[in-house]
C-alpha cells in the first residue's frame, strides 16, 4: 500500500505553476486570495453551489506552496472577524432585549412575567444563537475543507492551531465572550452572552423539571455547540466549554433546585411519595442527559439528585411516623422497599442507613414476639397447639401447665419463623438478595433469638412436636419444609450445646416411648443437623439410633434364646429391651439423676428379677465384662388383669369376670404386682409401697396418680383428696373396675415433652454449665499443650474462638476454669503474672 511513513514533498521548484489551463490561477498571491475571499463571502451567504472546490483548493494550495501560508492564515482570520462584526453580532444583539436580560439575569425566575413568556423569550434567543452557530459551523467546515492544504502543512508545521480551530473559536471569542456591560447598566460589566446562554438554558431545564414542555432539540443543539467549542484554540480534550463552564453551572442549578424540592417533600409528602418521586427524578435526569444535554453529564446530575433527594433527608424519610421504613416493613410494602433499596444502594454500596434500621426493626419485632408470648394466655387450647381436643366438650378444658408451655414454644417458633419468612421475602423481592443486608438480618435474628433464654429448649420442642404429630399426613415435601425451618432456627442458636442437651432428651423420649411419627423424618433431621453443624454434633443422636436398632435385634435374639431353653413358664413374660449406651442418652432417661444414686436400685418382684437375670446371662454370652443397669423409669409394661365378679351384682358388667390388658409404666407394673400378693380389699399406704419397691417418691407419686386418679384407668382406689396423690393416702385394688375397652393405657404423666419449669430449667443449665466447664478445661489444655506459654488475654480469646461453634463461653467462666487448672497444676503462672505455662 502507499501508506508509508513520512510525507512525500513535491519539488520546491514549481514547474506546474502558471500553467493553469483556464488562466484564472497564476503564481501571484493576490489573484488567488481575491478568488478565495469572494468564495468565503459566497460560502457565508450559502451560495457555494457555483464554486468549484478544485479551483479554490488549488488556489490555496498554491499560496501555501509559495510559502505564503502565514499570510493566508491571517487574511482568513481577519476576514472572519470582520464578518462577525458586520453580519453576525448585530443579529445577536437584536435578540438581547432588555426584557430577556432582566428576566434571565437580574430577577431570575421570580420575575412577574409568566413562565410562558419567559420560555418563549429564552427559546427565541437560543434559536438565534443556534442559527448563528449552525451557519458559522457549516461555513467554517467548508472553509476548512477548501483550505485543508493549509492546515495540513502550514498550521502543523508552524505550531499554530489549525485554521479550523481558530475560525471556529471566533464564535466563542466574538459572540459567547462578548461583554454586555455597555448594553445594560443593571448588569455587571463582565457579564457575557455566554452567561445569558447559560442562564436561559438552565431556566429552560428548570421549567422542564417543573413539568413545562420545552424545545428539547434546541437545548440539545446549544449543548452540542458548547461541547464542540473549547476554552482555547488548542482544543484540549478536557477544555470543552460544556465541561468547563456549562456543566458546573448546570450542577449548581440542579443542586439548588433539588435542595428546595427535597425540603418541600419533607414538609408536605410522605416516604412512599418521596421514593417514587425520587426515582422518577433520577430517570428524568438520565433521559435529559441522553436526549437534551450531553450524556457525560449523566453522572454528575445523578449524583446531585442522589445527594439532595436521597442522602440529605434519608433519615427524615426513613423515620417518618406514618410511612417510614417501619411501616413499609410492617406492611410488606414490597414496591416501596424495592425502590428504597435501589436508591440507598446508589448512594452507599454498603447500604448502611438501611441496614442499621432494618436490624433495629428485626430486633424490635423479635422482642415483640417474646412480649406477646408473655402476655398470651395459653390456658385455653389454641388452634394448632395440638393439645386441645377438637371434639371435646363445648367448654374447652384448661390445659395443664406443661401443655401450655409447649404451646408457647410452638407459638414462639412459629412466630420467629414467620418473621424470618417475612424478611426472606423482602430480601428476595426488594433487596436484590444483598449480601450485606442478608448477613445483617441474620445477625439480628441470631441476636434476638439468643436474647430469649429458652430459645434452645423451644427449638428442640418445636422439632419434637413436629416429629411426634406435626408431620402426620404430610407429604415428603412438606416434611422437608418443616425440617428446613428447624435447621434455619438451629443455625441461629449460639448455645448449641444446650440445644444438643434438650434434643437428646426429647429424642430419647421419642425413641423409648415410640412416639416418633416417622423414623425416616428423624433420620433426615439428624442428617441435616450433621450437614449444618458437623459430625461431632450429631454423634450422640446417631448413637441413640444405633442403640435402638441393636436393642431390637437383642430383644429378638433373646426371645429365640428363651424359646431354645424351653423355660415355658417364663415365656409368659415377653421382654422388649432397650440397651442404651450411657453417654449417648440424656441422664434423665438413664436414671442418673442424683436421687436414684442415693436410694439405690428399685426392688423388682421375683419373677421380673428372674427375667432380668436370664437376660443378663444371655447378654453377657457375647459381651463379657459389661454392666447393665436397669432403668425402670423409661419402660412400660403390658399386664393382663383379671377383675373378679362382684358378688351381689347380677346384671351389668360387674356381674362377670372381666379381663383387661393394661399398659402401664414399669413402676406401675411393680406397684400392681405388689397387690397380687395381697388379699382382696386390703390396702397399702404410699409409704408402705415405697418401702417395698424402693421407687423414688416423686416417680411413685406420678405412677400412683396414673393408675388411681385418671378415671379411665383407675385400677386402684384411694382415700383422701380424689384430685391428688398424698403421702398419707391408702391404696386399694379396685375390684369393681370397669372399662369399655379391653386395652387400657394408663396415662404416663411425664410423657408429653413439655417446657421445663423454672427450677427444672435451672437444673438443666447447671448441668450444662458443668459440661461446659469440662469442655473449656479440655480446650485450655489443648491450647496450652500446643503453645507451652501464652498470655492470659490470648488464651481467653483463643478458647472463645475454638468453642464458638458450640456455644458462647462467658469470660468469667473461662477465668474460673483457668484458676481451677492452676490449682490442679496443669498450668503455672509465670513471674510476670499475666502469662501461663503448661506443665506436662
Amino acid at each position, binding site marked *: 500500500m502507499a501508506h508509508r511513513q513520512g510525507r512525500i514533498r513535491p519539488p520546491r521548484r514549481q514547474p506546474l505553476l502558471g500553467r493553469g489551463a*483556464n488562466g484564472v490561477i497564476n503564481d501571484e498571491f493576490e489573484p488567488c486570495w481575491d478568488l478565495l475571499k469572494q468564495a468565503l463571502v459566497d460560502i457565508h451567504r450559502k451560495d457555494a453551489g457555483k464554486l468549484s*472546490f*478544485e479551483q479554490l*483548493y488549488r488556489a490555496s494550495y498554491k499560496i501555501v506552496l509559495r510559502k505564503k501560508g502565514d499570510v493566508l492564515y491571517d487574511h482568513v482570520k481577519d476576514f472572519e472577524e470582520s464578518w462577525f462584526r458586520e453580519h453576525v453580532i448585530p443579529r445577536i444583539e437584536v435578540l438581547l432585549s432588555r426584557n430577556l436580560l432582566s428576566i434571565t439575569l437580574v430577577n431570575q425566575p421570580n420575575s412577574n412575567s409568566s413562565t410562558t413568556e419567559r420560555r418563549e423569550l429564552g427559546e427565541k434567543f437560543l434559536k438565534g444563537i443556534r442559527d448563528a452557530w449552525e451557519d458559522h459551523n*457549516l461555513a467554517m467546515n*467548508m472553509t476548512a*475543507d477548501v483550505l485543508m492544504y493549509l492546515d495540513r502543512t502550514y498550521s502543523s508545521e508552524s505550531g499554530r492551531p489549525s485554521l479550523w480551530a481558530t475560525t471556529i473559536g471566533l464564535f466563542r471569542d466574538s459572540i459567547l465572550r462578548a461583554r454586555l456591560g455597555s448594553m445594560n447598566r443593571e448588569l455587571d460589566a463582565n457579564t457575557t452572552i455566554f452567561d445569558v446562554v447559560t442562564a436561559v438554558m438552565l431556566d429552560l431545564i428548570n421549567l422542564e423539571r417543573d413539568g413545562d414542555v420545552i424545545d428539547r432539540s434546541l437545548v440539545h443543539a446549544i449543548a452540542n455547540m458548547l461541547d464542540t467549542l473549547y476554552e482555547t484554540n488548542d482544543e484540549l480534550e478536557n477544555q470543552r466549554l460544556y465541561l468547563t463552564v456549562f456543566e458546573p453551572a448546570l450542577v449548581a442549578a440542579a443542586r439548588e433546585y433539588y435542595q428546595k424540592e427535597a425540603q418541600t417533600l419533607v414538609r408536605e409528602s410522605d416516604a412512599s411519595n418521596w421514593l417514587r418521586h425520587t426515582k422518577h427524578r433520577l430517570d428524568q435526569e438520565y433521559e435529559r442527559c441522553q436526549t437534551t444535554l450531553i450524556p457525560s453529564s449523566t453522572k454528575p446530575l445523578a449524583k446531585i439528585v442522589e445527594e439532595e433527594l436521597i442522602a440529605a433527608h434519608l433519615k427524615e424519610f426513613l423515620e417518618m411516623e406514618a410511612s417510614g421504613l417501619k411501616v413499609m416493613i410492617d406492611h410488606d410494602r414490597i414496591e416501596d422497599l424495592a425502590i428504597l433499596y435501589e436508591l440507598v444502594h446508589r448512594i452507599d454500596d454498603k447500604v448502611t442507613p438501611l441496614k442499621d434500621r432494618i436490624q433495629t426493626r428485626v430486633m424490635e419485632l423479635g422482642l415483640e414476639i417474646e412480649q406477646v408470648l408473655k402476655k398470651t394466655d395459653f390456658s385455653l387450647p389454641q388452634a394448632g397447639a395440638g393439645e386441645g381436643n377438637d371434639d371435646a366438650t363445648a367448654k374447652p378444658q384448661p390445659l395443664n401447665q406443661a401443655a401450655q408451655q409447649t404451646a408457647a414454644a410452638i407459638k414462639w417458633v412459629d412466630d420467629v419463623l414467620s418473621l424470618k419468612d417475612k424478611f426472606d421475602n423482602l430480601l428476595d423481592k426488594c433487596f436484590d438478595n444483598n449480601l450485606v443486608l442478608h448477613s445483617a438480618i441474620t445477625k439480628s435474628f441470631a441476636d434476638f433469638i439468643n436474647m430469649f433464654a429458652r430459645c434452645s429448649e423451644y427449638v428442640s420442642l418445636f422439632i419434637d412436636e413436629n416429629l411426634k404429630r406435626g408431620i402426620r399426613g404430610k407429604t415428603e415435601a412438606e416434611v422437608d419444609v418443616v425440617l428446613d425451618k428447624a435447621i434455619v432456627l438451629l443455625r441461629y442458636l449460639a448455645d448449641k450445646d444446650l440445644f444438643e442437651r434438650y434434643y437428646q432428651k426429647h429424642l430419647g423420649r421419642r425413641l423409648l416411648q415410640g412416639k416418633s411419627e416417622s423414623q425416616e423424618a428423624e433420620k433426615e433431621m439428624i442428617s441435616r443437623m450433621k450437614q449444618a453443624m458437623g459430625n461431632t454434633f450429631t454423634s450422640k443422636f446417631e448413637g441413640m439410633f444405633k442403640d435402638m436398632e441393636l436393642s431390637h435385634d437383642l430383644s429378638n435374639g433373646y426371645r429365640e434364646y428363651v424359646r431354645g431353653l424351653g423355660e415355658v413358664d417364663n415365656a409368659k413374660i415377653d421382654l422388649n429391651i432397650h440397651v442404651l449406651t450411657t453417654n449417648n442418652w440424656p441422664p434423665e432417661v438413664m436414671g442418673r439423676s442424683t436421687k436414684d444414686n442415693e436410694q439405690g436400685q428399685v426392688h423388682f418382684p421375683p419373677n421380673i428379677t428372674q427375667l432380668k437375670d436370664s437376660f443378663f446371662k444371655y447378654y453377657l454370652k457375647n459381651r463379657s465384662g459389661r454392666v447393665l443397669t436397669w432403668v425402670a423409669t423409661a419402660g412400660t409394661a403390658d399386664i393382663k388383669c383379671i377383675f373378679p365378679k362382684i358378688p351381689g351384682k347380677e346384671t351389668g358388667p360387674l356381674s362377670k369376670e372381666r379381663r383387661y390388658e393394661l399398659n402401664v409404666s414399669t413402676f406401675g407394673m411393680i406397684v400392681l404386682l405388689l397387690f397380687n400378693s395381697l388379699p382382696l380389699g386390703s390396702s397399702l399406704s404410699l409409704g408402705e409401697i415405697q418401702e417395698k419397691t424402693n421407687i423414688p417418691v416423686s416417680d411413685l407419686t406420678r405412677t400412683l396418680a396414673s393408675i388411681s386418679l385418671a378415671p379411665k384407668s383407675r385400677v386402684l382406689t384411694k382415700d383422701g383428696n380424689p384430685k391428688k396423690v398424698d403421702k398419707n393416702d391408702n391404696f386399694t385394688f379396685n375390684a369393681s373396675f370397669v372399662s369399655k375397652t379391653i386395652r387400657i393405657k394408663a396415662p404416663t404423666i411425664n410423657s408429653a415433652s413439655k417446657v421445663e419449669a423454672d427450677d427444672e430449667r435451672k437444673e438443666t443449665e447447671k448441668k450444662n454449665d458443668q459440661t461446659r466447664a469440662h469442655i473449656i478445661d479440655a480446650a485450655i489444655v489443648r491450647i496450652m499443650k500446643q503453645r507451652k506459654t501464652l498470655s492470659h488475654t490470648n488464651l481467653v480469646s483463643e478458647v472463645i474462638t475454638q468453642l464458638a461453634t458450640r456455644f458462647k463461653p462467658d469470660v468469667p467462666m473461662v477465668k474460673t476454669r483457668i484458676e481451677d487448672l492452676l490449682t490442679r497444676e496443669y498450668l503455672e503462672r509465670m513471674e510476670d503474672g499475666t502469662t501461663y505455662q503448661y506443665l506436662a
Partner: protein
Amino acid sequence: MSAFNSSAPPSKYVTLVSSEGFEFVVLRQATYCSPTIKKMLDPNHQWAEAKAGRCVFPEISGVVLEKVVEYMQYWYAYREKEDVPDMHIPVDICLELLQAADFLGMDQ
C-alpha cells in the same frame, strides 16, 4: 440547506477529468482514497463538483490521472486485505505522480 435538495441518493460513480479532457468514471467509494476528492464531493457542502458528480483537474495530465485512478481501484479492491500484490509505477511519470498525490492528499 441546499444539501438536502437532491432527493435521490448520489450516483455510485463519479467522473474525474484530466487536463486534456480525458474522463475516468470511477466508483465513488474508490475516490474517497483521496481526502481532497472526498471533501470535494461532500454532499453536505454542495460544491459544484458534488452537484455534478464530476471533478475537473486542469493541472493533472491524463497519463497521471489514469495511474491515480488505477491506484484508487487498487486501494479500494485491497482495502481490507493483507498480502497485497505490488502495483507497477512507471518511472517516467514518477515525479508528476508524486505531485498529484500531494495535491490530492493521498500521501497519508
